[in-house]
């Protein structure tokens, strides 16, 4: 992806982040009320943590198709085994997510298979595990104090749950930026062969990437099920679509090596603002699904050739400017 394409992407993001609230604010009463902003950040809390994990694998040049299934199973684990202590339930869930992440990554460098294949396998397996754990029912969680605590309003628009997501964004951001392993993750996605030949620890980077994505998906799913005080086998069915959209809108290139957690956070905000606004305009869940699908289609086209075509005038402009006499 060229510099100009990235700039175009950033410009689109900023226009959407500013433009959508203005439009929704004009068409919906009380759009900027504290309650609605709180609702937006609650949606951000779940989608954000899933999209963040997914985006780390995308930066490494891979793709974790199993994030939704992991978060569903993690939610079931939390509710099933966290009856006495919610913390223990979350811990089990995260350990489960980390184990799945290790397994997802274990096959990659040794077997040389695309992660789309291994994670489609684990997605199918975990979907089965989810149905098995739920046993065809919606599991309910008795300890409502935990739900109240996780979602209680802090500073008007935040909650402990959204703080956890924001904290994850900060930690992952620092990790990717300031550690060698973080930079190895970027290198693995940028140019795999060059990364291996210049001594980047690609195998380790991929493992860490999938562990992050598995762990974060599990944490997100566990926290969501605690907050809803229920868990079912179909809970996370729609989240992969949204997480992929958010990551790509947020400037993560599907080819790998490009993008940052800050961008992903912007992408997630754009998606939550869009879905929240559509909901306030009384769109049905189907219509929202349709809009999300269209958005992902546009975004994936922009990631492909269309983006390069649209950015080419910008490129020419930049070149002319560079060659012009000062």
């Amino acid at each position, binding site marked *: 992806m060229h510099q100009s394409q990235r700039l175009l992407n950033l410009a689109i993001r900023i226009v959407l982040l500013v433009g959508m609230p203005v439009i929704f604010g004009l068409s919906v009463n009380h759009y900027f009320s504290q309650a609605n902003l709180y609702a937006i950040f609650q949606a951000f809390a779940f989608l954000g943590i899933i999209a963040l994990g997914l985006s780390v694998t995308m930066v490494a040049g891979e793709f974790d198709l199993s994030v939704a299934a992991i978060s569903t199973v993690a939610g079931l684990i939390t509710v099933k085994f966290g009856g006495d202590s919610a913390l223990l339930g979350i811990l089990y869930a995260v350990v489960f997510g980390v184990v799945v992440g290790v397994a997802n990554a274990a096959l990659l460098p040794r077997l040389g298979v695309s992660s789309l294949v291994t994670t489609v396998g684990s997605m*199918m397996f975990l979907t089965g595990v989810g149905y098995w754990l739920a046993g065809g029912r919606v599991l309910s969680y008795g300890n409502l104090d935990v739900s109240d605590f996780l979602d209680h309003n802090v500073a008007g628009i935040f909650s402990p749950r959204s703080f956890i997501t924001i904290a994850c964004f900060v930690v992952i951001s620092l990790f990717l930026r300031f550690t060698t392993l973080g930079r190895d993750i970027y290198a693995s996605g940028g140019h795999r062969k060059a990364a291996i030949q210049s001594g980047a620890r690609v195998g380790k980077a991929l493992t860490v990437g999938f562990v992050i994505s598995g762990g974060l998906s599990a944490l997100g799913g566990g926290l969501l099920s605690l907050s809803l005080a229920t868990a079912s086998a179909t809970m996370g069915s729609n989240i992969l679509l949204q997480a992929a959209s958010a990551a790509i809108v947020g400037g993560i290139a599907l080819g790998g090596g490009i993008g940052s957690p800050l961008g992903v956070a912007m992408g997630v905000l754009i998606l939550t603002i869009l879905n929240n606004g559509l909901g306030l305009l009384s769109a049905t869940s189907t219509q929202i699904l349709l809009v999300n699908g269209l958005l992902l289609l546009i975004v994936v086209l922009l990631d492909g050739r269309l983006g390069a075509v649209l950015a080419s005038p910008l490129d020419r402009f930049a070149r002319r400017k560079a060659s012009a006499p000062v």
Partner: protein
Amino acid sequence: MHKTALEPIAQVSPTALRRWASALFGTTSIHAASIRIATLVLIVVAAAIVPHFTEFGNVQSLMYSVAAVGIGAIGMALVTLSGNLFMLSMGATAAVSTVMFAALIHLGLGTTLLLVVLSGLLMGIVQGGIIALGKANPIITTIATSSIIIGAGVIYTGGLTVIGKGDATWLGQGKLFGWLPTQILVLAIFAAIASFILQKSRIGREIRLLGMRAEVARIAGLRTMAATLVCYAFAGAAAALAGSLIASSSAQGNLTYGIDLDFNAIAAVLVGGISIRGGRGHISDAVTGAIFLAVIGNILLVSGVSYEYQLVAKGIVVLAAVVFGALLARLGPGRK
């Protein structure tokens, strides 16, 4: 002057068994050959030890469960062979097709099938166009179109079941010679067409070469765009046909019918031993994969294992096939 006349013609003509064996296993990969043997062994063992497995009714239901998934797997196989991994909108296409089939069946079976399959073809062409012309990521593109197709379907049906007002029993419950479901005939014809296109036609060779080395295929001047379009068109049509088969058995359409075709077709392709890196594999591999999974599912069903465990078991089989296939690809000669 030709010297061929002087050369000895093949002295030892292969025995019938050897010819049969080489037809079954000769040109396929080790993985595909192993699955064929495993399928045969599984069927023999199941016939011997699983009660009721060989009963007429059970064999019938086994054949019905192979038909739709087999057709879906053939479509998926073309996408995989062209190097585009998977098409994740086949389930959505099949689900919408069950609704279309039920809504149109009053026009007569032939017309309905034609219209439904054509619309599936069109959906495939649109997606193939986006992927080939727009250079868009195939997985993400088909995830997106999947939700668009389902969304459109929900808006049309309101989530309700559409009950057909026509006669689809020839396809749904018809049997040739009193035992062979017409659905199996449809599968066999579809497999033969797909196999012919892939192995004998120019575009088929282009599809396989595109799957092996996309860059080389492009530089060599192959019609890479047409090849991609054909694969997705075929896969869309396959999904629509699979949806029609599913809808025909009850003359009903619902958006939850056939929605798991993605998973089942991917599972069949992975288990059957078609190379995920594209280019290597046969249509018959995908069908074998579908049969293998159907037999396993049937054994579990007959043994009274619950649906949840069946899903887990299917997942384990697919994961095992991925690992096994990747190990073989690494050990095998001439593979990178």
